[in-house]
């Protein structure tokens, strides 16, 4: 099979009219790149295709060659070609990693916006807030600041090292562990707990509406999938936050460096979150949960239906017996 036929077949297999319309120009670009034998080259618009190769007249030089582009690579004397998909399949994969695509607001549909927010906003809110707290602690206590937990007469305190006069947020030398300032700045066990709780709640408050919106906007989604997704999201966020808090509190008890437990809390939360996501992917936990919920619901529906049938049958039998007893009728009902 010739290259052109192969390419045309590939385009045809995509079953997209738009590809077939521009196939000739795509072929021209492809042939041009192949003859040039550059190691890695990409054609995005007509400006890269010499006039002698063109098969149609573009509206302008910068007009898009295709909804996407063609790549030709020479790797170990082998020429490989790639036809990347149209943007509705993937903007990133389509336009390659070297090229950013400027999307106008019309290009962004609601689902893309929601998915973007869910992917790029929700997971970063908590770590950003924690990092802001960390920077405040480092700024006030200094990079060498130490917070030493102490128990005096059964009450927990946090003592700071260094000169109190140099600190703006903590002008004293010793504070009660449940002091508002201490808790806000995520120092000590209560502070870490407060930081993690706030971060977790905020993440949940952002994630849950976004997940619901995403499911509403997507086709082929059921209520069970929504509940499965939500349950798994909440489980993952909660577990990551709790593990981060435990690690932070343990480090707070083991080291006196004020900033280290906050670092550890952020790090452990991130790693545990990614780990849980990887496990979810590995064992398809969300899908299994959704299908289990669906199955459970079906079982309940069937049981209820059978129950209704049984009740109807017993009523019928009761009525039949009553009529037979009262009237002596033995005929068919």
């Amino acid at each position: 099979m010739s290259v052109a036929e192969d390419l045309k077949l590939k385009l045809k297999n995509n079953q997209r009219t738009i590809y077939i319309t521009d196939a000739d120009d795509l072929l021209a670009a492809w042939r041009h790149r192949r003859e040039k034998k550059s190691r890695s080259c990409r054609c995005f618009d007509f400006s890269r295709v010499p006039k002698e190769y063109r098969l149609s007249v573009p509206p302008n030089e910068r007009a898009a060659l295709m909804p996407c582009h063609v790549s030709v690579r020479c790797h170990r004397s082998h020429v490989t070609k790639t036809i990347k998909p149209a943007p509705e399949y993937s903007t990133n994969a389509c336009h390659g990693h070297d090229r950013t695509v400027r999307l106008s607001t019309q290009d962004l549909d609601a689902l893309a916006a929601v998915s973007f927010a869910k992917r790029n906003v929700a997971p970063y809110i908590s770590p950003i807030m924690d990092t802001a707290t960390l920077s405040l602690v480092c700024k006030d206590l200094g990079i060498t600041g130490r917070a030493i937990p102490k128990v005096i007469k059964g009450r927990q305190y946090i003592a700071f090292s260094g000169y109190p006069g140099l600190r703006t947020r903590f002008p004293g030398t010793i504070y009660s562990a449940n002091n508002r300032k201490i808790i806000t700045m995520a120092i000590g066990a209560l502070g870490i707990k407060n930081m993690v709780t706030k971060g977790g709640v905020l993440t949940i408050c952002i994630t849950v509406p976004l997940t619901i919106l995403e499911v509403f906007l997507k086709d082929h989604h059921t209520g069970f999938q929504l509940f499965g997704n939500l349950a798994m999201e909440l489980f993952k966020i909660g577990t990551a936050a709790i593990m981060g808090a435990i690690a932070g509190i343990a480090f707070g008890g083991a080291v006196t460096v004020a900033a280290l437990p906050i670092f550890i809390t952020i790090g452990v939360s991130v790693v545990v979150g990614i780990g849980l996501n990887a496990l979810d992917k590995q064992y398809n936990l969300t899908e299994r949960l959704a299908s289990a919920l669906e199955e459970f619901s079906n079982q309940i529906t069937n049981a209820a239906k059978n129950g209704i049938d049984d009740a109807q049958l017993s009523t019928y039998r009761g009525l039949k017996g009553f009529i037979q007893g009262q009237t002596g009728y033995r005929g068919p009902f």
Partner: protein
Amino acid sequence: MNKKLAHLIIIFFDLLCFLGLWFGYHEIQRTLMYITNQADIIEFGNRVGFFIVGLIVPFGHIIAIVEYFNPELIKTYNRLLNYSTIVTFIILFGSGFIGSSWIKSRVENADYIYCSNASGVSALAKTLVYTRSIDICEELVKSKRKI
């Protein structure tokens, strides 16, 4: 918190982080193997490289152990230790980001097509699915819908 209990909990987290690191390494190796074998479907997390951030826990534990046995040493090198903690944290996060981007670019350079409809978006990470062709992607999406 009792220091010994704190150390025991940290040991648990050390093990957890090493397990995570091993898992991340295994994931990356598996993905590279799929690329070499030209598998039809490649599935990986977009933050698979961030498992390396877990090394912050053993690093912090070393500081805690040194402080437990020799607090004077920590007092002497306090500034150095804090700076090294921050630098380590930044390096680990940077490595995680670079590692994740590297594996993604390896897959894309191997002429795989991103199958967005089969990919999953979670609050904490995204599962990326790449296929060799659009047909395989469509088949995969159909089979996932059936589930």
